């Protein structure tokens, strides 16, 4: 089945130690998104890629970076994680940027910062 895959499902990192979260998709979608979701809150969009074009949300901290080396993979890099960055990180895809397209989400990576 076509899907969005996130690895690892659970990640523990130390305060200030860089961490990378991974997302891959078999849907061949043009757009990939990264969201941060804190406990029982709405997902908050961090940034998205349309093909190779990177779009950062205005309030996304510089501590968060992303890479998309090819259509299938997208990475979220947190350069110096703080305790406040502990959250569920959701990757999503959509076929295109048109407003009518729904997004398909991966299962998420739960990040713990110690």
């Amino acid at each position, binding site marked *: 089945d076509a899907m*969005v895959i*996130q690895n690892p499902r659970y990640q523990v990192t130390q305060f200030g130690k860089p961490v990378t979260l991974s997302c891959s998709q078999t849907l061949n979608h043009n757009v990939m998104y990264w969201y941060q979701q804190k406990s*029982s*809150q*709405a*997902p908050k*969009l961090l940034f*998205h890629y*349309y093909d190779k074009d990177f*779009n950062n*949300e205005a309030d996304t901290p510089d501590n968060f970076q992303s890479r998309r080396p090819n259509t299938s993979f997208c990475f979220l890099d947190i350069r110096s994680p703080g305790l406040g960055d502990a959250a569920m990180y*959701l*990757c*999503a895809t959509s076929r295109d*940027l048109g*407003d*009518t397209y*729904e*997004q*398909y*989400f*991966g*299962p*998420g990576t*739960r990040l713990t910062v110690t």
Partner: protein
Amino acid sequence: AQSVAQPEDQVNVAEGNPLTVKCTYSVSGNPYLFWYVQYPNRGLQFLLKYITGDNLVKGSYGFEAEFNKSQTSFHLKKPSALVSDSALYFCAVRAPWGNTPLVFGKGTRLSVIA
């Protein structure tokens, strides 16, 4: 800027009874509206969307939603609730122009009691 309100943090309903999860929105122009469901420790799953046309939209798992432009609402409904419907439900809106992000409500936790 667009916004979504889900006025209820929690909805409790008995199995077999009809359920309603409320959503109101604010956006300039005709909105694109979505419902997603999130099961524990999982990503969001797309349920249904309203783009244009018939105000009553049918989606996955027997859910439907009614778009009401005069009341700026898009309530999620199901005629007969199942225990397995217990989850966190998110309403989302996108403005009908440009590269605008999908804006999520804060979510409503649905508990279906046997």
